[in-house]
């Protein structure tokens, strides 16, 4: 099952201006195994793998792939050496089609002319092996994120990579797609491939992992057979402290109704949605991918046009045509894609926090009061424990968890009535996750209505007081979180309408 060592990285160090990303890290991968690479965000996992795949150059240490030592690895060399990486942030050329993307950089040619027919057939072959229904001639930009990820995986397969690095591959996949991915991983293992699996979904690992390497703060902590660790031990190694309660739910008394949505309709994804939020409770929205939860929040927040529906805040009907209306009414949203929709990554933290709150920090002449701005920003950093050397750092350079905190921070500066979180802890390390939970709890305690969407069932069950399940655009179930079971939730989440 497990063969010889195919990747050996020893005493790797890497520094960026002002940050020591990797300090004497060693890593080993054998053929035929899945090695989980775990660690909080900022632990150095991505950096280490980027060095292995040739994106970054190491400062010190040795890299051996298949027994051969490599000094200055570039992406093309890494590919040739058999290392393929599938990034968490998908890297596809949206204007090219599936086949063109799959063979980008290594196009098959007939003389000097591209052999499109051959590439399309080969692409089709790999897609079929994955069991995915995608036409190789489809333009990638028109496909949803989950399908794009499948293509990335197929692309790596087509390179016949012996070393496959997967960075959060399942974050946008449905459970069916995950099962298929795992069966393919098993197949790759039996063929002698070594797979580095980076994921924050610790529950998934048990199904697929052989060994685990844990990193923390740029250092190698420990590694070993997965079975020899308990989940608590793994988490403890990752955060350096024991997390007694993974989900710190706080008990609050449910107060009066704060927010109500009636008969919301917005396209195929939001059909006749009605629900309400109360003071002192967190409502979690569960469901499969494509259930319509994100679309619901966007319709409420005024981003997408709604066809019909009423929104009632504190017993008064509110008219929301655009996000500005929602914000003024006191309804705020932390979106699913925080890099794209939640932050202006090229602006500083200061500017991001201030952006929706300019009405609060500008004088009557429209000039920004810098002192107020700084105060607001520093308060946000304090309240949310945002790890940053200063507020004039580009938001895009923060880690995922800290970015999420900035997104939340800008809303907390206002007195909001309803805070909507869409996948607040996706791609965030365990420690930061807990901090986000604490933030949600604090809001709950303050009487603010909190609604959050999550695809991690344990999270929904652990933090929410009430769970609403959606399927195919409709609300199919409502459960009390303390008595709900995963089976029940799954039942409601798969309650599709009969097409017969």
């Amino acid at each position, binding site marked *: 099952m497990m063969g010889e060592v195919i990747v050996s990285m020893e005493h790797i160090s890497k520094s960026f201006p002002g940050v020591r990303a990797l300090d004497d890290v060693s890593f080993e991968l054998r053929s035929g195994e899945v090695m989980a690479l775990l660690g909080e965000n900022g632990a150095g996992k991505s950096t280490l793998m980027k060095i292995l795949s040739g*994106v970054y150059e190491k400062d010190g240490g040795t890299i051996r792939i298949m027994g051969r030592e490599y000094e200055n690895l570039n*992406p093309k060399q890494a590919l040739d050496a058999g290392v393929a990486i599938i990034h968490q942030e998908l*890297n*596809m*050329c949206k*204007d090219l089609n599936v086949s063109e993307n799959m063979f*980008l950089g290594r196009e098959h040619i007939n003389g000097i*002319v*591209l052999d499109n027919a051959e590439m399309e057939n080969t692409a089709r072959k790999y897609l079929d092996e994955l069991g995915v229904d995608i036409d190789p*001639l489809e333009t990638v930009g028109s496909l949803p994120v989950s399908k794009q990820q499948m293509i990335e995986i197929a692309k790596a397969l087509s390179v016949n990579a012996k070393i496959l690095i997967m960075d959060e591959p399942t974050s946008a996949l449905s459970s069916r797609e995950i099962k298929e991915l795992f069966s393919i991983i098993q197949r790759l293992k039996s063929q002698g491939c070594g797979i580095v699996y980076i994921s924050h979904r610790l529950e998934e690992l048990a199904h697929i992992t052989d060994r685990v390497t844990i990193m923390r703060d740029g250092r190698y902590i420990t590694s070993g057979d997965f079975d020899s660790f308990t989940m608590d031990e793994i988490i403890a190694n990752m955060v350096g402290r024991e997390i007694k309660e993974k989900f710190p739910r706080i008990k609050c008394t449910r107060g009066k109704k704060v927010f109500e949505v009636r008969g919301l309709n917005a396209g195929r994804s939001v059909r006749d949605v009605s629900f309400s939020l109360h003071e002192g409770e967190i409502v979690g929205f569960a469901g499969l991918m494509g259930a319509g939860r994100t679309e619901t929040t966007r319709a409420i927040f005024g981003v997408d046009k709604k066809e019909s529906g009423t929104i009632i805040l504190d017993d008064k009907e509110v008219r929301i045509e655009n996000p500005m209306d929602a914000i003024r009414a006191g309804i705020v949203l932390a979106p699913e894609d925080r890099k794209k929709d939640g932050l202006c990554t090229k602006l500083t933290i200061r500017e991001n926090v201030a952006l929706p709150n300019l009405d609060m920090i500008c004088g009557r002449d429209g000039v920004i009061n810098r002192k107020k701005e700084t105060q607001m920003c520093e308060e946000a950093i304090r309240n949310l424990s945002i790890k940053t050397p200063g507020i004039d750092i580009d938001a895009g350079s923060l880690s995922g968890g800290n970015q999420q905190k900035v997104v939340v921070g800008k809303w907390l500066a206002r007195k909001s009535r309803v805070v909507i979180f869409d996948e607040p802890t996706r791609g965030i390390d365990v420690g930061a996750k807990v901090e986000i939970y604490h933030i949600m709890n604090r809001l709950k305690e303050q009487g603010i209505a909190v609604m959050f969407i999550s695809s991690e069932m344990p999270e929904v069950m652990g933090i929410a007081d009430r769970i609403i399940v959606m399927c195919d655009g409709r609300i199919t179930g409502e459960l009390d979180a303390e008595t709900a079971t995963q089976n029940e939730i799954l039942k409601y989440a798969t309650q599709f309408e009969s097409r017969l």
Partner: protein
Amino acid sequence: MYRARKTGLIKKIMRIKGMGAALTAFAGLVVIYVAFGIMNPMVFSGQNILNLLRSMSKYLLIGIGQSYVMITGNIDLSIGSVAGMSAMMTATLMTLGVNPLLAMLITMAVCLTIGFINGVLVGRFKLPPFIATLGTMFIARGAAYIVNGNRNTDNIGVVLGKDAADSFQNFFYYGKILGLFNTFWIAFVIFLVFYFFLSKTRTGRHIYAIGSNVEAAKLSGVDVVKTTVKTYLISEFCGAVVGFILCAQAGMGNMEAGNVYEMYGVAAGVIGGVSPLGGSGILLGTFAGAAVWQTLENGLNMIGAQVGIQRIVIGVMVVAAVLVSVIRNRKD
């Protein structure tokens, strides 16, 4: 059986990305041409068609160069000035007695050097293409002025003699082959070669990839620097050829030759469906765009229309074309 095959071919053609936009541009071309012809039937005359094909060739070549650069998401502001520099340099060399072929080779070498510089500045040093090519635009225009001492050149035949001058001018402008002016054939052949290069070779594919997502391209092992340099080399090559044509047309070098041509190139590309954001558009569309531009210029002249009308109309069309392509992208 035959019908099945025929629809298969049409489907195949329509599947080519960018074909829809190109065909729409051709449709617009026909509408405009017919409209002008109705207003002045001489527009339909054979002589006028010949003229049209000849004079659009300049814009077609500039459009090809500019399209290559635009598809990677960059822009080339220097191509017009390079054309001017090429016209002046070729003419000046010839007035000094240099053999036309040698003069063209030397000029081409200089123009390609500018292309190389553009490519390195944008590709390797990551200068914003607007700024980098703005700089080379001024440099090239300055060179065009200086090369003959801040004057337009004499007639190219002063030293070489009338015969040499005539054969040069005939080759690039006044001569005909198979009933069409040489200028058109030159542009058409170059069009075919670069169309093939863009759609059927690896480098062509990489050009689209860079324009679509340069990060993804880089991570897939595409040599972004080399490919960017190639696009600018092609662009300045086209500029150089246009310079030859302008020199042959006037029989001398004019310091202002090629002025503002770079913008006409952008317009031709955009009308034909080449998105200035990069990643999409085909040269067939550029062909249509250049034809639209020339038909407008020619038609307005033939009906004695006011100055500026052409500019306004082209401006409206460019804005409309870009709006449509942006709306389309948003739908995806």
